[in-house]
């Protein structure tokens, strides 16, 4: 055992030694240690280098407030940057190293920045690195980037997993210190659903660092019985190692549970690494405690300068006294209790108190320098702290007086008062009041949006008995709001320390004017900002607290300024001659402590990130060797290459087969919406540009949908199934959008219409059987009369296909004789296989989306979203025929707007390259005149372009300015490499212009 590990006391197990490695050196700790307590037990203070100046930094605190002790944990796939050593529980074999230093934390090249610190003040980079212009990117920024940053990102994928948990409760209690536990004990009796959420591995909060006597017993005993009682209560859920990091509207708490952080990452475990809790609570108790504030004095950032309460916590909680000769530096009473704990642990203690008058009872046990402050620290990396300089401080606090003295010591424990942990309170939109007696912001108690109550130290109440009474009372009154009456259970505490007095002294003067000379007065440790930087900010006009925060980076580190914020704005208040509340407070933003991306991501991983949608026939396509394409969330067969076939060859073969014999497309992904109700027909008339008044039962019609601007956004065929009953189809990618569109209109504009729309996309499997042999083939499989007379083009018949009930639609996207066979989804695979078995003799082929695109382009059929882009009217597409004569329809009025009705708009045309073998790349623009180099005046672009085997040449469609009036003209398309391709404007139809094949 080292000289720093106490022989007894603390909650660690001295019999269970834990071995770990820090910066390559092996150390021993105990079970129950954090990495920080184990390092302190081994006499290690220096753990990191600061961000900007690369100054040596040590462990200051014992929780999330610590700005310095952030290390890179583990190596390889498990490596994790910026881990708080004060939080990380020790496990056997733990390996950690310091960040942001090279070659080592002791000898860090970056420390050269510290020598230039006089130059590197707040905002220095705005003033320089501007010349020469190119050097910013080629030199300065590169150097700055390399020097900045803290930990390193793992290079390997994370082997661990994460999960989400949703919870609902009547009362959530955040923080299981004395106030939170008292609240929980009271609430437990209510029978309501209670959650008690604690960040530490065990309950107790401040009692772990500063034990007391409760209900006549040592607080450790009381904690054990309270825990047993809460564990036994079925209505109470106790979470430990769980940090409530975010407080969102309507009492929505986001908390992160560190499930396996305390175990070696190599431990085999089925548990996730972290679990993100999303909790909706009727009422919330915030019992989050308070954070001790550091003094701003000369060289106050040296390793070995710690918070007084943290030193006490290391003694009482971890059995470590991090120094043997300790100077306690304070402006208030609370540090004397810490000093007593240090003395009890065997350390010699000298108190330096900036107050001229200190209560005699407090002073009795110690050597106390009243009205004095620390004015310098003798520190070296090799020897640590050896002494501090102390001077008397003038009554107004601005200067030192007298000759001063030196006190030998190896540790400084400091306290400048307390700041309630109000982060969650302000995240919940709570406001703050400034308590001028205790020098801290406290919650103002009113909650408009999110009903919660802050209790205990989080509410500026510090005496143990008062804290517990407040916790119990809050639980009682919040439950009363939920109409539950419980009796407050108030444990009786022997201790109830008064707050006492505190001296307002935001900067401790030193031998030189602050900001001059070598000594630095830090208020923001992680980002290296000093009192002088705050003054510079003020001088340069950055007076608003938000400007101060941004200009000096105060509170913008991973610690979110838990130690620095109040000091920073108090120094600004002093500089501006205002009070602290007049300067104001910056907004606390979530998360309170950093949240792991993986935890926020949860179990949504790989296959579960927007799960792929597959049709019922998917496996058929896999077996036939399909290459799939992502269309929205769907996986659709793109093409079906046979052995060694290229995509081009496969698509050409599929296209020929469809027009020569028979091909089948899986069209199940098309959006399908069932529309019913007595106003359904009226609704379709509004939704589509054309007229639906006379569509008879069993008949199909193609429709275009336009938005309010009159611009086409989707299309499809809708069929009249029966009176007041229609089956609508949409594009695959647009299905959800159309459904939303329908609901929006029905709910906001026509709520009185009787129309019911139901998405039935996944209820049907659809086989689109195309080609001259399709009738022959289908006839073998169905009882439906397929003759043209009985079953004409653009109609639907019901019957059986392969013995399965089916709706067959005679509609076509290829221009061939086509039957779209719709069967209940679960029969899809069976019917597909039956069709292919029967089709063998016709050389049936499956075809994919690419062939579908080519085939429809041969016919000049548009694809909404490819040949349209939200700026095309039906008239622009040359589809005037689809604009019905009717009173009104969505978007119709917009066509009369001046720009929408003008001549010369871009219009859809066909394009034929001069060289039939050249396929224009889609997206290529045409120009009015080819110039040697851009810019050139663009007149349109290619929307669809393919090699068509059925036309024996390349074909394309495009949107060209005034295209409909330019038929026969040749225009030039310019490729990215500068070459131009001439193409002739033609009608956008390249095959079977008369349209006879599909109607046969």
């Amino acid at each position: 055992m080292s000289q720093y590990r106490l022989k007894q006391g603390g909650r660690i197990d001295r019999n269970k030694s834990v071995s770990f490695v820090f910066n390559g050196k092996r150390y021993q700790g105990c079970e129950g240690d954090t990495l920080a307590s184990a390092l302190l037990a081994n006499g290690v203070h220096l753990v990191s280098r600061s961000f900007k100046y690369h100054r040596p930094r040590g462990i200051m605190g014992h929780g999330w407030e610590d700005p310095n002790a952030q290390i890179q944990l583990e190596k390889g796939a498990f490596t994790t940057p910026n881990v708080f050593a004060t939080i990380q529980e020790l496990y056997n074999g733990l390996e950690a190293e310091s960040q942001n230093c090279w070659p080592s934390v002791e000898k860090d090249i970056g420390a050269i920045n510290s020598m230039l610190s006089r130059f590197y003040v707040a905002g220095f980079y705005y003033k320089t690195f501007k010349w020469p212009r190119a050097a910013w990117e080629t030199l300065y920024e590169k150097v700055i980037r390399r020097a900045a940053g803290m930990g390193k990102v793992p290079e390997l994928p994370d082997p661990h997993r994460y999960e989400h948990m949703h919870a609902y409760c009547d009362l959530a209690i955040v923080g299981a210190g004395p106030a939170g536990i008292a609240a929980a004990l009271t609430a437990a009796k209510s029978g309501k659903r209670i959650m008690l959420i604690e960040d530490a591995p065990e309950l107790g909060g401040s009692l772990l660092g500063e034990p007391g006597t409760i209900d006549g017993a040592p607080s450790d005993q009381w904690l054990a019985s309270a825990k047993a009682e809460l564990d036994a209560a079925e209505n109470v859920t106790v979470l430990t190692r769980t940090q409530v990091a975010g407080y969102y509207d309507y009492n929505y708490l986001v908390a992160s549970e560190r499930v396996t952080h305390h175990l070696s990452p190599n431990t085999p475990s089925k548990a996730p690494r972290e679990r993100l809790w999303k909790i909706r609570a009727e009422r919330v108790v915030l019992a989050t405690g308070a954070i001790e504030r550091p003094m701003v004095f000369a060289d106050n950032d040296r390793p070995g300068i710690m918070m007084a309460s943290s030193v006490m916590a290391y003694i009482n909680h971890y059995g470590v006294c991090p120094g043997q000769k300790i100077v306690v530096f304070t402006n208030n009473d609370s540090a004397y209790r810490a000093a007593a704990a240090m003395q009890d642990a065997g350390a010699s203690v000298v108190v330096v108190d900036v107050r001229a008058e200190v209560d005699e009872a407090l002073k009795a046990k110690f050597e106390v320098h009243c009205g004095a402050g620390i004015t310098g620290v003798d520190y070296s990396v090799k020897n640590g702290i050896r002494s501090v300089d102390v001077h008397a401080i003038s009554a107004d606090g601005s200067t030192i007086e007298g000759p001063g003295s030196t006190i030998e010591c190896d540790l400084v424990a400091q306290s400048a008062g307390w700041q309630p942990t109000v982060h969650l309170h302000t995240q919940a939109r709570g406001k703050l009041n400034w308590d001028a007696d205790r020098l801290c912001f406290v919650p103002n108690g009113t909650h408009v949006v999110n009903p919660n109550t802050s209790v205990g130290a989080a509410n500026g109440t510090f005496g143990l008995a008062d804290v517990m009474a407040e916790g119990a009372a809050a639980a009682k009154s919040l439950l009363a709001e939920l109409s539950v009456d419980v009796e407050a259970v108030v444990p009786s505490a022997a201790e109830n320390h008064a707050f006492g007095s505190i001296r307002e002294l935001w900067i401790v003067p030193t031998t030189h004017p602050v900001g001059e000379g070598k000594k630095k007065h830090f208020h923001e440790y992680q980002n290296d900002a000093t009192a002088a930087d705050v003054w510079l900010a003020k001088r340069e006009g950055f007076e608003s607290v938000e400007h101060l925060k941004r200009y000096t980076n105060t509170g913008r580190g991973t610690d979110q300024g838990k130690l620095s914020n109040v000091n920073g704005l108090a120094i600004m208040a002093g500089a501006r001659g205002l009070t602290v509340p007049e300067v104001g407070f910056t907004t606390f933003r979530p998360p309170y402590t950093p949240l792991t991306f993986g935890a926020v991501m949860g179990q949504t991983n790989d296959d579960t990130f927007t799960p792929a949608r597959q049709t019922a026939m998917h496996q058929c396509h896999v077996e036939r060797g399909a290459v799939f394409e992502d269309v929205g969330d769907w996986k659709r067969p793109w093409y079906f290459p046979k052995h060694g076939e290229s995509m081009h060859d496969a698509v050409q073969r599929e296209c020929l087969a469809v027009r020569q014999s028979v091909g089948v497309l899986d069209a199940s992904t098309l959006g399908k919406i069932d529309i019913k109700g007595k106003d359904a027909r009226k609704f379709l008339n509004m939704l589509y540009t054309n007229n639906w008044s006379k569509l008879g039962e069993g008949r199909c019609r193609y429709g275009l949908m336009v938005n309010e601007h009159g611009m086409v956004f989707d299309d499809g065929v809708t069929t009249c199934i029966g009176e007041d009953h229609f089956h609508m189809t949409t594009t695959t990618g647009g299905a959800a959008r159309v459904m939303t569109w329908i609901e929006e209109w029905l709910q906001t504009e026509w709520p009185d219409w009787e129309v019911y729309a139901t998405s039935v996309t996944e209820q049907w499997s659809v086989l689109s059987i195309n080609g001259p042999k399709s009738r022959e083939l289908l006839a073998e499989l169905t009882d439906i009369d397929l003759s043209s007379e009985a079953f004409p083009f653009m109609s639907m018949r019901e019957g059986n296909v392969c013995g399965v009930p089916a709706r067959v639609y005679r509609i076509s996207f290829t221009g061939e004789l086509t039957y779209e066979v719709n069967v209940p989804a679960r029969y899809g695979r069976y019917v597909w296989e039956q069709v292919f078995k029967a089709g063998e003799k016709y050389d049936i082929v499956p075809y994919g989306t690419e062939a579908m695109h080519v085939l429809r382009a041969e016919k000049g059929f548009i694809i909404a979203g490819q040949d349209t882009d939200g700026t095309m009217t039906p008239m622009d597409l040359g589809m005037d025929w689809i604009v019905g004569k009717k009173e009104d329809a969505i978007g119709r009025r917009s066509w009369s707007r001046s720009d929408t009705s003008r001549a010369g708009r871009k219009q859809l045309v066909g394009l034929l390259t001069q060289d039939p073998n050249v396929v224009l790349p889609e997206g290529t623009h045409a120009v009015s005149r080819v110039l040697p180099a851009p810019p050139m005046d663009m007149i349109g672009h290619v929307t669809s372009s393919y090699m068509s085997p059925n036309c024996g040449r390349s074909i394309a469609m495009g949107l060209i300015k005034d295209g409909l009036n330019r038929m026969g003209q040749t225009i030039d398309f310019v490729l990215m490499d500068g070459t131009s391709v001439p193409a002739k404007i033609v009608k956008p139809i390249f095959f079977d212009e008369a349209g006879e094949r599909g109607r046969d």
Partner: protein
Amino acid sequence: MAHFSVFSLVRNALNYHKDWPRQWRSPEPKSHYDVIIVGGGAHGLATAYYLATECGITNVAVLERAWIGGGNSGRNTTIVRSNYLWDESAALYDHSVKLWEGLSQELNYNVMFSQRGLLHLAHSVHDMQEIGRRGSAIHLNGIDSEFVTPEKVKEMVPFINLNCRYPVMGALLQRRGGTALHDAVVWGYARGADAAGVDIIQNCEVTGFKIEDNTVVGVETSRGDIMANKVGVVAAGHSSVMAEMAGFRMPLESFPLQALVSEPLKPLVDNVIMSNGVHAYISQSDKGELVIGASSDAYTSYSQRGGFNVIEDTLQAICELYPVFKRVKMMRQWAGIVDVTVDRSPIITKTPVNNLYFNCGWGTGGFKATPGSGNVFAHSIARGEMHPVAEPFSMFRFHSGALIDEGAAAAVAH
């Protein structure tokens, strides 16, 4: 104005930086100005700067409700690019990029503009068609634009998971795209404008307009009435509220848009990488934080808070595309209010009230346009005629139907 340079920095260091003057004054408002700009964000300050330095109008006030740069100027993800589809947009945004390219020198303020290259990933055949068309248009507009293969993407971004749920099929690269430091832009323009004579007045809320004969003659503020010959409103998310005060409607919807940063990390992400397909965009600040933009919330709101579900979606996408970031932590998260138009293009315009001008509707992408927006707006106000680059962005395009639909090119899926 104190000149900023390494020499002045050293000289001031000798005196412990005690002689630096204010970067901008804090004057009392005068009773009358030639031009009042309402809104002390980057666009408003840039407008004032160019009015004073390029248009010869120096009797200008910028009125800011709270502190300058506190709205979207200080809440964005600092991306600069001009890879837009339509000619009108290309002209506007590239005008801006060209101004960015000399801005640190012009303002004598290092705005840390860094053309680290911007990749726009394509994840489907449809995405490939989209970047194909847009890349061609950008190229022919004389703006740099390159198609890159997935292999090249992997070379530039070695930690990317090309075979994610929606595999990366290619990308559009704009090498002149990059980032700048948002706060520095605000402060640099403020300092430059102030030096040219502009009064920057913080904590001065405009509560109404003084309008006579359908002509604006001044504004009512929390610090009294201030008269002006012309008024330019640059109030982002609150523009529609301002328009209502002036008696007309502005076709805007305001949504919360969230962003987040990670803890500071050693440099890894050299470029700006955007993906509409899995909806994730990311860059790394000079300080080492990963800067990540989320989607806008689904519902309109003026509260600068968004739903946590949006953050979940965003980090799911980030971890899908970049699995190495799973153990990285989110340090800070916030929201701004974005004013969105129906065609996702801004409004730079005259209004139904004479001498009253509006500049708004930048939606999710206003930061990149700061210099260009301020520049063309300043010239438009000065001349009383819209600058040719600004002309197509008139609010009256919603009457004529001449929309500039950048829905496809806008980074954020709405």
